[in-house]
Structure formats: structure tokens, C-alpha cells
């Protein structure tokens, strides 16, 4: 008798659970509908190109398409590693983006600390506003400005240098100087943004710490070293770790607009090489192979750096 009752209760519970499941699915349907359009677009335009990487293993002919082209195994990869300039391009990429990463941390932190010492509010706000502006302009516009002011014949920078007796410098045409021009102009575009991030981090430091240290007789410099810097160190470490994930992105949009065949030896990076080989010279297979290797390595870096950021600072994208 008891058993039977239990059994009855069991089926009742089961059917209740089933109807709850149906109920839940019903409540979930709108969520699927909401996601549908985005999922379709990502599937085609983000996942599609991932599949399209099979071009790297083909002698790809646009006329024959993805499914008609002949598969040639790793031939494109072999060709790629035999290219005489491939290692110098890898070196340029890592060199330029490495310098960008380092200066992209040092400069904004320094400027944020300097702005923190300014007690003239209007001046502080004005500086903040102005240094932030280049961040929002495209590399096309900024390159237009940079080419104009750095021109060796009639650019303002070389004219000013001329007044103090310095010979015109070919900032964009001299292969020795070009990478540094790239790094400096990149820092110039982005340091305002970084500065704001660090200034935001600075506001979260407990003001009591400063007052306590004042009683202990600390001066401004000691406060900066022992309170301010440690206060934003988490942010600094986080942003550095995350930026390391971009080590293979040396800045296609910038270099594409500023380089010329004169500076290929020091200024050509992986992305610009892929562009010239693929889009301009129709060597789709090899260009895709280079792009694929770059993507794979880049993904490893990004995942690793984000994992590290999660460990160090509890930072998660989602």
C-alpha cells in the first residue's frame, strides 16, 4: 500500500517535472528567437571565414571556388617558410608591436601620475580633453596629418627642426627611422585613452591613505611611490597582460597608410604582407596560409594572456 502511494507520487512528480520542462522550454523560446539573427550572421561572416581557411591547403582559383579548387596539402606552408623575407617580417611585427606595448603602458601611466599632481582643475580637464582626441580619429585622417607635418620638403616638423640646425629627417621614408615613427605616432594616438583608464583607477584609491601618510611625514614623491603606484598596479598589470595578447597585431591600419616600398625591409608586417600577396597579387593560398598561422599563434597568445589576467586580477571578459 505504502509502496503504491509512493509510486503514484513518483509518476505525478515526473509528469510535473516534464510539464515544468516544457514550461521552461516555452519560456526559453523567445530567447532563441532573439539570438537567431546574430547567430546566423556570425555563423556566415565569422565562422564562414574560419572554414574558408581551407584555402591555405589549396591551389585556390576564385573561378573554381572553395569546393572546386585542388587540394595540395602543405605546399603553401612550405612555400611560405621558404620566402626570403618571411622572418624579417615576423621580426618587424614583433619588434614594432613589442615597443608599442611597452610604451603604451609607460607613457599613459606617467601622464596619469603627472595629471594627478595638477590641482588646477581647469588645466587638468583641458589637458585630458585634448590628449584624448586623436584616439577617436581614424588612421586615414591621422596618417593624412602625419604625412603632411612630417614631409621632409615642406612639413612643419622638419621646418622647425631646421631652425635649430637639424637636417631634414625622412621620418616615413628612412628604413632606420620608420619603425620608431610608427611606434611614436601610435603612442601619440592612444596614450590619451590609456591615461583616462589609469586616472579612473586612481580615483578608487582610499584618500585616508594619503592623510595617514601625511601625518607620518611623507612627501609627495613618497606618496606617489608607496600609495599611488601600488594603488593602480592591478590595473597596470591587467592591461599589460591583455596587451601581450596582441603581440602579432602590429597595427595594420596604421602601417598600411604610412609605409611605402622604401621601408618594406623594416616596416612590413604580417598583415600588410598578407594583404599585398592576397588582395594585390592574387596568391590566395599562400596569403591565407600566412594568415592562418598568424591567427593560430595570436589565439594562443590571447587565450594565454586572458587566462593570466584572470589569475592575477580576477578579470574576465564575461
Amino acid at each position, binding site marked *: 500500500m505504502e509502496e503504491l502511494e509512493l509510486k503514484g507520487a513518483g509518476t505525478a512528480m515526473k509528469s510535473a517535472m516534464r510539464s515544468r520542462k516544457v514550461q521552461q522550454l516555452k519560456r526559453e523560446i523567445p*530567447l532563441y528567437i532573439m539570438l537567431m539573427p546574430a547567430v546566423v*550572421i556570425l555563423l556566415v561572416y565569422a565562422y564562414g571565414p574560419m572554414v574558408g581557411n581551407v584555402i591555405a591547403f589549396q591551389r585556390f582559383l576564385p573561378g573554381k571556388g572553395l569546393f572546386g579548387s585542388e587540394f595540395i596539402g602543405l605546399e603553401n606552408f612550405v612555400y611560405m617558410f621558404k620566402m626570403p623575407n618571411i622572418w624579417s617580417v615576423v621580426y618587424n611585427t614583433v619588434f614594432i608591436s613589442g615597443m608599442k606595448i611597452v610604451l603604451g603602458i609607460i607613457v599613459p601611466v606617467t601622464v596619469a601620475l603627472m595629471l594627478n599632481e595638477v590641482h588646477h582643475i581647469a588645466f587638468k580637464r583641458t589637458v585630458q580633453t585634448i590628449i584624448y582626441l586623436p584616439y577617436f580619429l581614424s588612421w586615414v585622417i591621422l596618417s593624412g596629418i602625419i604625412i*603632411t607635418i612630417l614631409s621632409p620638403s615642406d612639413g612643419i616638423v622638419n621646418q622647425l627642426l631646421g631652425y635649430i640646425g637639424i637636417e631634414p629627417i625622412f621620418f616615413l621614408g628612412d628604413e632606420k627611422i620608420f619603425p620608431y615613427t610608427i611606434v611614436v605616432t601610435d603612442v601619440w594616438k592612444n596614450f590619451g585613452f590609456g591615461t583616462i583608464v589609469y586616472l579612473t583607477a586612481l580615483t578608487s584609491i582610499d584618500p585616508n591613505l594619503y592623510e595617514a601618510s601625511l601625518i607620518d611625514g611623507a612627501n609627495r614623491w613618497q606618496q606617489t611611490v608607496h600609495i599611488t603606484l601600488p594603488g593602480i598596479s592591478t590595473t597596470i598589470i591587467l592591461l599589460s597582460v591583455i596587451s601581450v595578447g596582441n603581440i602579432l597585431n602590429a597595427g595594420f591600419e596604421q602601417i598600411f597608410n604610412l609605409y611605402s616600398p622604401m621601408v618594406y625591409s623594416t616596416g612590413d608586417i604580417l598583415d600588410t604582407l598578407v594583404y599585398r600577396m592576397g*588582395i594585390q597579387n592574387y596568391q590566395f593560398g599562400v596569403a591565407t596560409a600566412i594568415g592562418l598561422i598568424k591567427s593560430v599563434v595570436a589565439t594562443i597568445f590571447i587565450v594565454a594572456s586572458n587566462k593570466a589576467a584572470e589569475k592575477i586580477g580576477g578579470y574576465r571578459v564575461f
Partner: protein
Amino acid sequence: MKFKKSPGYILFLIMNYGVLFFLAATCFFPILHVLALSMSSSTAASSGRVLILPVEFNLQSYRYVIENNAFLKAFAVSAERVALGVPINMLLTVLSAYPLSRRKEQFRMKTFFTWFFLITILFSGGMIPWYMVIKETGLLDTIWAMIIPGAVPVFNVILLVNYFRSIPAELEEAAYMDGASHWCILWKIFLPISVPTLATVTLFSMLNHWNSWFDGLILMNNPDKYPLQSYMQTIVISRDPTTLTERDLDLLKIISDKTTKSAQLFIAMIPIICVYPFLQKYFTTGLIVGGIKG
């Protein structure tokens, strides 16, 4: 906080203000210089007498740019791109952010779809396959080539998901108990209280559409369909002589390449400068909301 004004500290303050002024100047003067160039005579511009104020003031180069059909056409394409692209971006951002911000009990496939979105930023397909897919789907040479492939801005989705998740659960639970649908909760509860974040995301999307040039450059075979930034790229950077007509060449004797280039650069900057106050206001909000959580 008061410090003894030691000579060292005063020296530091002077240096500090000096360096900060210099840095601000490096960001501001180039733009001012370009503006001054655009309003100067071509001889003054090429002889290097222009610093930050126009020399031999005239607006001939602006007249030339405004009468230049290609420039205006490109400006119109950019405007169309923003007008079509931003609403589509926003619609898809909102529609994706809501399901992804649900708790696991409410949406069992949440983790799967979250990764579905995340993987697209972790691994990029690469330039050539990306181009091929857009070509195969028949978008080449249409304005949709610059709108559909980037219609889901995943970073903006993440930003909005983070904001949605910070909304107290009690708010929606009450509505949920009353039998409100997800659509209703999204529309009546979530969107109204997310206005600052939505503004941030809208600005990002506008900025992105306005500033993009590479897609236009390679996805449009016909230069007539270039958006402004792609057009600028060919004019300002590449200086492709084939795009110059004979009339242009005649005019170039009066108004130099340098002054018209400067005028075009400046005009292309105007929309950004106009939304700049808003960008500044909302950008920090966006950073705090979407960025580093302790």
C-alpha cells in the same frame, strides 16, 4: 593636502605643467596646423610660413572640395552607412545581450552561446577567407558589404551583457511573477534603465562606421561607392593620379594639393569633433561598466 613649498617641489610643478602642456600641444597643434593650412594660400602653405594661423587667408580650397562631386558622394555614402549600420548594430546588440545576460536556470544554452560569441573574437578567420565569404554571399559592391558582415559588434554585446547582469534581479523577478514575457522585460525594464550604456554603445557603433575605411576600400570595386574614409585613403594617402580629372589638374595650380588635402582632412574630422563632447562623457561610463571589474 598641503605641502611645504620647497624649491624642489616648485621646480617639479613647473616642469610638470610644462610637460603636460607640451603633450597636449602635440595632440592639438597638428590639427590646428592642418586647419590653418586649409585656409591659407597655396604659396604660403608650400613655403612653410603657416604655423597655427592661416596666412593669406582664403577659402578657395573649401570651395573646391565642396564643388567636388566625388567628395560629396563619398560623404553621402558614409552618412548612409551610419544611418543603416548603427540601427542594425544596436538592434542586434540588444537582442543578443539580453539572452546572454540570463542566469543559467533561465537559459540553459547560455554557456554554449556565450562561447559561440566569444570564439569570434578569439580566433579571426583572416583577411582572404573573409573577403571570399563576402564575395560568395553576393555583397561585393553594395553598401551592405560594409554593414552585414559586421552587424554583430561582439565587444558591444559584451559591454551590454555586463551592464544587464548588474541590474538587480528583484526588478525583473516581480515582472516575471506577473507573467511578463522576456520581450516585455527587455523592452519595459531593461532598456529604460540602460540608457547611458546604450548611448555609449551607440557612439561606439557610430564611430566605428564613420571611421572604417579598409572594408570600403577592398569590398567596393567602384570608387563611386567608397565611403568618405576610403575615398580619403585614396586621395590623401595614395594620391592615385588616375582619379584626377583635367579640370582638377588646372585647379591644382591655383589651390595646391596641400591646401585641398588639409581642407578634406578637416571636413572629415568635423563629425567626430561634433560628437566628441558626448564621446568623452559616455566613454568613461562605458569603461567602468564594461571594463575592469575588481
